[in-house]
């Protein structure tokens, strides 16, 4: 089987979607670890230093661009497969099974993914773009002058609209990952009665609940801190 | 006149000697020879695949949407083979002996011995194809005893042996399709054989999707279209199972052997009402553990569980103490009918007997408790454990019963009644499986050959695959070696045109009647006549009446059947009409055959020929022959007799007491 043949099969493509999705999952963990320092009561020192490190380390910067490419590959292949899947049933059923044979979120991966994509664009425009190309205030820690993204974030989350958007984004993330993690494992061929419980547990609790909830807690926390 | 062409010499060497002296066709010539196979069940699929492998150009036809749907798929129990893996004394000879005896001495010794000989190779072949037979923990194949045999020679794949074997043959067939050796025509129905100079040289088929009539040439034609149990309307056959291909072959000159030999299977789910479209078989294996009974009191309206032990009549155990519930199918079926006719039947229709697992549940429960070393176990606990064991062994059958009847067979006994299941009769063939028409062969249930008057459990699958995998690939060469000079005949040959016109004429006629009744109306009427007068018990008076009634019904059919739609597209009613038209002719022949056979043997029970205790009385002096009927026109058949010579197994009265 040639590489070209392998990656033109639906399963080869799904392998790529799963693998890119997995890479994005690991990124989420790193990203969350850094973001949690936003809630630290230190005037933003830890977060800003972290942001500066991430923004200027050449290796991380390469990875960061790689990340964007990965997101695009993930989205592109997923859209390609979705279009194909739509075409596989030109005439739809008059009566749909609802949730009797599958969970609603497992059927809405494309919708959740699209919401996430919109969320990402806004998220990147607000913070990443501002950090790199925008005009943001700066702070100095131990003689080192770094951009004060902390303040930008705190200011941004005074806006209840943005907070709501972030919560919505994380809800989408949650459902996308509850199915996505398990589904990727299945695509990779990991399906074994001895391990399925563990896979489901990690998918549901770590990626479906803990990570999205912690992400969502940050804007809510900031918002409450400020109106308080 | 009838020459079965059984090779001379001792029984044990007939087949090997035949194989080593039979004519061969060289590979270059095989490529030029075309073979038509009609039907894709075990016989058809295995034959088409094997012949494709040999290099012949094969065309295979089935009326279903895929070759994998043929009704062999529904066989549950298993397949016999004389492997003696269980070290219990089985041998080729024993399988042969049991089959001849089980067939009530109405089968050919030569054929049956060959069948037993190749039975082992079938298992090897199927395992090599990936058929997942049941295995023991040591990784070797598991066997069970089936249908009352004294050895464990039945190989099985849960209750789906037929399915697994058919899918094995189907995959071999699809492989040949992929390799270009076989061309597959699904949703096609054969409607006539084309004969040129007395030899079968092709068929006329209808494309069931477009309605187009097609002509197909072949140097030989193999009819593998299964049995004709649907002549009874209600049977365990699939809805589409039919006699049409075999009947057209018969009308083209192939003799029909022993048409009246029908197997009525004892353990089927009873009829629930007029809407009933088919009957469902419950595997014979259920009789291994279940006990069959009826109340001792007539018209007992109590629930089964409320009838105390002493008021139950375990009639099989009473009548046949040696074999009990495991007597052969024909005996068990007749005994059930006898009880129901005498007024002891159960259920709303009173045409059913109980198959009770209560004792087995307790027995297994106690064994289970014993295994765990537990004593003084409460009865409920024993029942619970017993139910688990029974579920493990028969769960799928119990589930099926529950789905169909809405009753829980773990709590109350199942109701069962005999139903038409298999037809031992079929196209008469010689040792080479050729019919009386040169170049026209019949394999599997479509031929009459190996089961005599009664087929043993787990033998149908064996015969279908033996014919297809291991017999026809050799025997067909003997004919085709002479045909290598026959160039493919163009299908505009007058014989094809004539045959096609005949088919079209029949279809036009059917479509033009536009009468008042549906096809099913006639089919049901025919089924009732057949079941009442040519079913489990027959008598001369009834059979004579039946012949007249069928003739009248046939006339009415051709005057009053209504087929909606048009011929040039998919028309399921037209398909059914053609099949029922053939059943209406076959039914009459079955009655004629039953009427001429003045004896009771196997599935054929003539009420005039029974002893004081109601057991069947065979007449070896006058009826040890195969009745081969020649078609001579409407209602006009000539009987030819092929005398059966028993050199090895001397006929005795079967006794299961």
């Amino acid at each position: 089987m040639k590489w070209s043949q392998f990656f033109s099969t639906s399963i080869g493509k799904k392998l790529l979607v799963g693998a890119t999705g997995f890479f994005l999952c690991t990124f989420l963990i790193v990203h969350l670890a850094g973001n949690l320092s936003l809630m630290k009561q230190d005037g933003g020192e830890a977060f800003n230093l972290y942001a500066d490190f991430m923004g200027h380390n050449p290796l991380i910067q390469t990875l960061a661009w790689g990340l964007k490419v990965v997101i695009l590959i993930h989205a592109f292949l997923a859209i390609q497969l979705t279009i194909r899947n739509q075409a596989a049933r030109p005439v739809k059923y008059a009566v749909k099974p609802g949730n009797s044979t599958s969970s609603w979120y497992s059927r809405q991966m494309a919708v959740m993914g699209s919401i996430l994509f919109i969320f990402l664009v806004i998220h990147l425009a607000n913070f990443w773009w501002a950090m790199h190309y925008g005009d943001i205030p700066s702070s100095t820690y131990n003689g080192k002058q770094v951009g004060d993204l902390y303040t930008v974030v705190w200011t941004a989350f005074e806006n209840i609209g943005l907070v709501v958007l972030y919560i919505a984004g994380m809800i989408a993330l949650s459902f996308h990952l509850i199915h996505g993690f398990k589904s990727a494992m299945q695509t990779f061929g990991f399906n074994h009665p001895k391990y399925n419980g563990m896979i489901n547990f990690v998918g549901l609790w770590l990626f479906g609940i803990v990570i999205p909830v912690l992400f969502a807690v940050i804007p809510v926390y900031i918002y409450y801190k400020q109106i308080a | 006149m009838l020459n079965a062409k059984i090779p001379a010499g001792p029984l044990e060497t007939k087949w090997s000697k035949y194989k080593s002296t039979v004519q061969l066709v060289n590979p270059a010539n095989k490529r030029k020879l075309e073979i038509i196979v009609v039907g894709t069940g075990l016989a058809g699929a295995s034959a088409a695949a094997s012949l494709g492998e040999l290099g012949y150009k094969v065309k295979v036809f089935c009326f279903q949407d895929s070759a994998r749907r043929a009704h062999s798929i529904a066989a549950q129990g298993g397949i016999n083979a004389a492997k003696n893996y269980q070290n219990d004394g089985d041998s080729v000879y024993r399988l042969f002996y049991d089959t001849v005896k089980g067939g009530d001495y109405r089968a050919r010794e030569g054929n049956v011995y060959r069948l037993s000989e190749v039975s082992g190779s079938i298992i090897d072949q199927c395992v090599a194809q990936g058929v997942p037979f049941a295995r023991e923990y040591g990784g070797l194949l598991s066997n069970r005893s089936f249908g009352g045999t004294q050895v464990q020679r039945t190989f099985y794949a849960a209750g789906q042996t037929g399915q697994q074997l058919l899918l094995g043959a189907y995959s071999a067939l699809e492989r040949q399709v992929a390799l270009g050796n076989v061309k597959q025509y699904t949703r096609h129905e054969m409607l006539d054989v084309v004969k040129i100079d007395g030899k079968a040289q092709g068929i006329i088929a209808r494309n069931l999707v477009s309605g187009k009539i097609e002509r197909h040439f072949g140097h030989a034609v193999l009819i593998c279209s299964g049995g004709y149990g649907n002549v009874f309307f209600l049977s365990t056959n699939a809805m589409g199972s039919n006699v049409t291909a075999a009947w057209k072959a018969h009308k083209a000159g192939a003799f029909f052997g022993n048409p009246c030999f029908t197997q009525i299977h004892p353990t089927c789910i009873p009829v629930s009402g007029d809407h009933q479209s088919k009957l469902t078989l419950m595997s014979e294996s259920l009789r291994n553990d279940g006990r069959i009974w009826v109340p001792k009191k007539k018209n007992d309206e109590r629930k089964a569980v409320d009838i105390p032990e002493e008021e139950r009549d375990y009639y099989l155990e009473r009548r046949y103490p040696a074999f009990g519930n495991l007597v052969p199918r024909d005996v068990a079926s007749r005994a059930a009918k006898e009880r129901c006719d005498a007024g002891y039947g159960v259920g709303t229709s009173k045409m059913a007997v109980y198959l009770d697992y209560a004792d087995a549940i307790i027995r297994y429960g106690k064994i289970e408790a014993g295994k765990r070393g537990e004593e003084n176990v409460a009865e409920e606990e024993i029942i619970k454990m017993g139910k688990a064991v029974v579920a493990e062994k028969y769960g799928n059958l119990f589930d099926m019963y529950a789905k169909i009847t809405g009753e829980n067979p773990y709590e109350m006994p199942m109701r069962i009644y005999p139903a038409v299941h298999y037809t031992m009769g079929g196209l008469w063939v010689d040792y080479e499986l050729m019919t009386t028409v040169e170049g026209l062969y019949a394999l599997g249930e479509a031929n009459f050959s190996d089961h005599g008057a009664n087929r043993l459990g787990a033998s149908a699958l064996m015969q279908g695959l033996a014919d297809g995998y291991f017999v026809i690939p050799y025997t067909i060469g003997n004919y085709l070696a002479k045909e290598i000079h026959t160039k493919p005949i163009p299908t505009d040959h007058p014989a094809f045109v004539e045959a096609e016109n005949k088919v079209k004429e029949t279809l036009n006629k059917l479509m033009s009647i536009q009468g008042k009744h549906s096809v099913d109306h006639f089919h049901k009427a025919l089924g009732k006549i057949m079941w009442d007068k040519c079913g489990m018990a027959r008598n001369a008076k009834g059979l004579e009446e039946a012949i007249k009634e069928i003739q009248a019904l046939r006339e009415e059919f051709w005057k009053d059947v209504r087929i909606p739609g048009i011929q040039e597209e998919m028309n399921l009613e037209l398909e059914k009409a053609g099949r029922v038209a053939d059943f209406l002719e076959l039914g009459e022949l079955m009655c004629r055959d039953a009427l001429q056979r003045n004896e009771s043997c196997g599935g054929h029970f003539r009420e005039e020929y029974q002893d004081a205790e109601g057991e069947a009385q065979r007449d070896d002096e006058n009826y040890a022959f195969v009745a081969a009927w020649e078609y001579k026109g409407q209602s006009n058949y000539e009987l030819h007799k092929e005398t059966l010579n028993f050199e090895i197994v001397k006929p005795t009265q079967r006794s299961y007491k």
Partner: protein
Amino acid sequence: MKLTLKVWRQKNKQDKGQFETYQVSDVSKDMSFLEMFDVLNERLINEGKEPIAFDHDCREGICGMCSMYINGRAHGPWDQTTTCQLHMRAYNDGDTIVVEPWRASAFPVIKDLTVDRNAFDRIIQAGGYISVNTGNAVDANAIPIEKHDADLAFAAAACIGCGACVAACKNSSAMLFTSAKVSQLALLPQGHPERATRAADMVMQMDKEGFGSCTNTGACEAECPKGISISNIARMNRELFSAGFTK
């Protein structure tokens, strides 16, 4: 019992098709779903109308021919049950039942509720077999097979090829069907020599037929009348990876 049936009627492949509504009365709880259709068809014939075309044959749940999409469910509401084994006891007086054909571009409608499933045959032709000619086999007990594997192979081999997995999948994916065969033969030592080409060829054929891809919703497994597990899909994926990465 009285029921309202809304049934898809379509004259042929080219016809656009539409729903027709029928009232059926005198439906008994003991009838099978298809027997209820028989009764309706008998009436239609007597009224001089064309009966509804639907595929069916064995009517005991094993041939895989029956194929109705009933009120949004492939083979109707009962689990692990084919249409022919579904009985009217599943319904109540006055119910409305909508019956549609399997919907997939790879399963074009031939007439009414009848679809063309030859795509499945072609997937098997691509590699759903072990290449062993008749007569080549060694003794059946020459290769012992671990019971656990043999049982798993049997569970996969129980597939009846009805297409309910495709019908139930929101993507009309044939992964469950294809994987059942790949799995069966991958689990048995006899199938090993061809396992790489088999997986590759069958998957490529499946894609070529226009079936959708798998998004692991599990609807196929939920609707499969034979309870084929999606663990077979995972196994097929592994088989394909091993073909893709090593062969």
